């Protein structure tokens, strides 16, 4: 993927375009997400970053499927577990890594950190670190599209645990009664922090919750990027054509702990292995190999190239200065008015 976008087209928009267009780019992006998040964990382990981080290894197909099914002009509200979505939507790896490392090259110049990524060029609103907070905000973004009668769609991405918070229910109901173009995407990775779904949640399928709001819903295999893309595309088409909101539940799994310090002792025996056997990257690579769209040498070259790009991104990040003190005083209030 080129680092030499034309000056008129932001690099993230161009990267989004690639994911929209080509299955090969989608595979590449999933590999990129995995490598970037592995790298983030390495950098934490090396003591180069303080604080915490929430990575999403195992959930890459949801992020990439969502990005592929939507436009850079749509709006997306994600969570603290947001590196994968940010990369999928188009944010370049150096910009993500840079923010995590508190460097000036980061999307917020290093004052936000891992939980706070945003990229207006591709409609990524600042990721929400408060569980549930992004859901009503996405409803508002959809209201904007509806009011202005454009065919944009807003998306809210959240975990299974977030469906137990009031904001989720209020947000879905409001979207339903106002018939807004919004797609609620639940990444059901079976755990909310250290608690298994069944210990905190009255339903097994989050999609069932849509019924309370007379809302369309779908369950999709979150490890299958094509299936995720198709499912979200159906929901997006419904939204764009005035058919109202949809709740899409992607069944997925995070291979890692909730956050950096979590070793996930709560996992059930054999569960991780079962999910690793259906790794979204391996599944999709296998499909592309089987269909002849990719050959084994090209796949090797792709993995190698991605690793190289991430090494390069890391170098640029480490060469970028840490956030400067005056930056913390910037952007608190907007100086403009209408």
């Amino acid at each position, binding site marked *: 993927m080129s680092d030499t976008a034309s000056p008129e087209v932001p690099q993230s928009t161009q990267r989004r375009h690639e994911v929209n267009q080509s299955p090969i780019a989608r595979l590449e992006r999933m590999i990129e997400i995995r490598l970037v998040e592995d790298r983030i964990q390495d950098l934490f382990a090396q003591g180069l*970053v*303080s*604080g*915490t981080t929430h990575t999403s290894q195992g959930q890459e197909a949801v992020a990439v499927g969502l990005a592929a099914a939507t436009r850079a002009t749509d709006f997306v509200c994600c969570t603290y577990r947001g590196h994968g979505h940010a990369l999928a939507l188009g944010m370049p790896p150096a910009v993500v890594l840079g923010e995590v490392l*508190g*460097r000036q090259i980061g999307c*917020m110049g*290093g*004052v*936000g*950190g*891992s*939980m*706070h990524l945003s990229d207006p060029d591709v409609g990524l609103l600042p990721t929400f*670190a*408060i*569980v*549930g907070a992004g859901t009503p905000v996405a409803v508002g973004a959809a209201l904007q599209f509806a009011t202005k009668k454009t065919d944009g769609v807003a998306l809210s991405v959240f975990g299974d*645990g*977030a469906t*137990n*918070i*009031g*904001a989720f229910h209020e947000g879905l109901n409001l979207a339903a009664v106002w018939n807004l173009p919004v797609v609620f995407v639940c990444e059901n990775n079976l755990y*909310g*922090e*250290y*608690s298994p779904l069944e*210990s*905190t*949640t009255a339903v097994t399928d989050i999609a069932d919750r849509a019924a309370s709001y007379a809302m369309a819903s779908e369950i999709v295999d979150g490890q299958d990027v094509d299936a995720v893309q198709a499912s979200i595309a159906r929901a997006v088409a419904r939204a764009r054509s005035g058919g109202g909101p949809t709740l899409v539940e992607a069944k997925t799994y995070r291979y890692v702990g909730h956050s950096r310090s979590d070793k996930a002792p*709560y996992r059930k025996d054999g569960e991780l292995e079962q999910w690793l056997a259906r790794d979204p990257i391996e599944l999709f690579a296998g499909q592309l190999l089987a269909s002849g769209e990719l050959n084994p040498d090209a796949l090797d070259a792709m993995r190698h190239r991605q690793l190289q790009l991430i090494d390069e991104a890391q170098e640029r990040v480490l060469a970028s200065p*840490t*956030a400067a*003190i*005056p*930056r*913390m*005083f910037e952007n*608190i209030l907007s100086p403009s008015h209408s």
Partner: protein
Amino acid sequence: MNQAISLAISEEMDRDASVVVFGEDVAVAEGPFKTSEGLLAKFGPERVRDTPISETAFLGAAVGAAMTGLRPVAEIMFIEFMGVAFDQMVTEAALMHYLSGGRYEVPMVMRASVGSGLGFGCQHSQTLERWMLGTPGLKLAVASGARTAYGLTKAAIRDNNPVVILEPRTLYGQRENVDIGDESIIPLGTAEVVRAGTDVTVVALGQTVSVALEAADSASWSGEVIDLLSLMPWDRSTVLESVRRTGHLVIVEENQRSGGWGTEIASVVANEAFGVLRAPIHRITAPDVPVPYGPELEKRFLPSAAYVQEQVSSLLSTKKSPSSWWEELV
């Protein structure tokens, strides 16, 4: 400090079977900050419960349970998460005693971690006492280490009012010897003089107590450091008595400058002890910005011991409030 909190709760659960604990990942995982260690094993799942991510539901449940016969200790993992359940604390819990003409009591405790210093970013690093300040019907205290956390937690659980205990999260790993038992209970509303001195009264809270002590320990001035401990109610007499001796008051706050807890202390002291003040009351605070992430910035956000020392020295020598470090930047 986390062990001291676990122990305080455990002892109170032993003492009174109506004490129950709930919050996110407090039971099986023993608390995200390990502040409920051993509680599930000892008291079982009836009294120690994990909740869904539903702060409104479980804080509200704490209110109802408290009014009708239990003594819940509810944990809000980060004080920011109270935002989604604000109503239950400041509009329900705080007013039930009043609204029942004094017939219902709300003996509940809401514990929450607070503060900057761990690189968690601006939505997980605030102290937010100001959200509750001035709410009639609530008590509010802030721990400054293991000993005070132990003493305040026990006092809070025994109190028949809704009590909020804030725990600076950088201090969970802090260790000190703690004498256990009822003698170590710290009554809500009492401050402690943690260092005697004659030139200046330095009032601190939570994470700034150790900052103020460090500043005073190597200073050219003799600082009397007061750990305020409780904000609602706060200990006017200890502060006023000290200011009457030193003639100077400096308040060291972690919160942003505007509307910080120190404004209340400053206004009362200005009213009650105007005649003895030999310099303006001076507040040392963080700037009016969200808590920044980059480590150097986050470190600068919280007043440092060196900065406090410098500011107090300047105040004492010039008898004028020194300007804050950021004034030349903004």
